């Protein structure tokens, strides 16, 4: 009789094995098993979104109730949440679809959410500069090699390098397509084998740390 942790282990084994079999057997009922599983996952994921929203709202409501540190930010979050929900409902009633151009929901999306996303993304430029400064300090041989390679690659990617010598962009491309690609492919082969290893360990029940 399967009990306790045996149940999730048995489910993992059966599901994993069937998915592997389905990869090689297109005949019914195996052929459509992966598609059906993904459909089930989408349905479950839809319901867990409610859990996510519940977690978010409960956390911030409690913060306001207990007047915890920085509780004022929680008010802003709850206000933003309620605002977008209300505008979404109104837009759906008024236009039949909240995602139509010109609806209040899309107005908020285009004029508030997209600029906020762009702002966050643009911060990346400054973070790259500070991280590159630290990474490229020539403390040892490896860091010096990295610094020299980075300078060549960066220089080869701007138009002035071609004006100085057409060989610089060609050399840059060589760095990217030969040594860089070789290292990258080595890592990718390791990752692929590691992924197979994790999958097999989970399917065979050897890896149980996700069950703790």
């Amino acid at each position, binding site marked *: 009789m399967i009990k306790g942790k045996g149940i999730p282990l048995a489910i993992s084994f059966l599901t994993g094995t069937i998915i592997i079999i389905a990869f090689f057997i297109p005949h*019914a009922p195996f052929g459509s098993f992966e598609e059906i599983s993904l459909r089930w996952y989408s349905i479950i994921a839809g319901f867990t979104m409610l859990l996510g929203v519940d977690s978010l709202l409960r956390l911030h409501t409690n913060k306001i109730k207990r007047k915890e540190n920085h509780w004022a930010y929680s008010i802003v979050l709850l206000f933003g949440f309620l605002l977008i929900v209300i505008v979404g409902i109104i837009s759906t009633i008024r236009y039949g679809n909240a995602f139509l151009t010109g609806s209040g929901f899309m107005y908020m999306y285009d004029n508030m959410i997209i600029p906020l996303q762009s702002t966050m993304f643009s911060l990346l430029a400054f973070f790259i500069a500070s*991280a590159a400064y630290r990474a490229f300090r020539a403390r040892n041989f490896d860091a010096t090699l990295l610094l020299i390679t980075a300078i060549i690659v960066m220089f080869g990617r701007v138009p002035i390098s071609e004006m100085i010598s057409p060989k610089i962009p060609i050399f840059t491309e060589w760095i990217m397509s030969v040594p860089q690609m070789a290292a990258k492919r080595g890592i990718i082969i390791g990752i692929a084998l590691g992924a197979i*290893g*994790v999958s097999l360990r989970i399917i065979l029940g050897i890896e149980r740390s996700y069950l703790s």
Partner: protein
Amino acid sequence: MKRHLLLFLCMISISVFSQELIDSTNVALIDTAITEMQHSGIVLNVCDTPNDDGTSITIKWDINDSLKGYLMDIHRIHGECDTAIALDMNPEKGIHTDNMVHGGTNYMYYALFKKDDIVKKTDNSLPVKAIGQWFNKERFDSFIVLLLIAGAFAWFIYLAKKGKSFYIRKIAGLDAVEEAVGRSTEMGKPIMYLLGIGYVTDIPTIAGLTILGRVAKKAAEYDTRIMVPSYDPVVMTTAQEVVKEAFTEAGRPDAYRKEDTMYITQDQFGYAAGVDGMMMREKPGAIFLQGLFFAESLILAETGYSIGAIQIAGTTETAQLPFFVAACDYTLIGEEMMAASVYLEREPLMLGSIVAEDLIKIIIVFVLIIGFILGLLGHGFKIGFFTDMFEWLVRII
């Protein structure tokens, strides 16, 4: 009422009349076309689509110059039923797959080529039925590789069961887990664990969850708070269970706080902004970034660096690895992350699976070296025998 009835009858008669008119026109055009088609020599080759579940039929044809500029319709005939399955196609495509068939039923096909008022018709094809296959021959090579990998795994797990001990090399990033948790405890600060923006179906997220179990257990033993802000609600629910189980296993179920494994948002930069805000406010002593990260990786890692937290990162995204190497104290590169739970657990069976991975890696490296030598001799020195051998190797792989 009478007026409505009259209108209804009138509409029916108009539709019947117009349908007849269309049919008669089509018949006239098709009849003309058949005469022309008999000389054109277009033949539809229909066959059961190979390696499928028996729900499709493939139709192929060769176009000749006389049909350039024509549009093509394909019809399926089943008993008395004639259905158009493709309309106004470019005939130069040469192939069409009918995915709307039932397995085991006979179907025939014909095509109409149309240009202005001219319609040309092919002969009906021979009857064909779709049959599901029990093995996808296109995936035979993958099957062999799977057998090889599964065989290696089975062999080394068997050896581990028999008591053979295996060696695993030192991974500095994983040795530092205890140091990071201890440091946070000494400083009285919480630990932050980020699983990235992957879903629970992604292997790096699963690997991240397995490491979370170990870190959470250490945190529970040290009585340190662990925060897991999540991008995906399924990942959040799974992480809650993993942390709860880890606290229970450590004998501290009372110290578990469900609200510390919280949902942030499913927006990439919204998540980055939310987590950055938490870092700045809560000032965690240790930050673990284990999972699938994309453009937000450096935004998170640099913020962590700015607050002076010890950072241990790991991802399979090769484009993000340099960012983590630059901004974090320790980085688990690809496979190290996958082996993390094995390294932390050191269970013989799990170690056996790592050795199996290494064996496969040796085989791959061996094949790469052979390929390199054959390529060099064949294409570099233009020796015909080696060129053929190289092409053969590439074909097999």
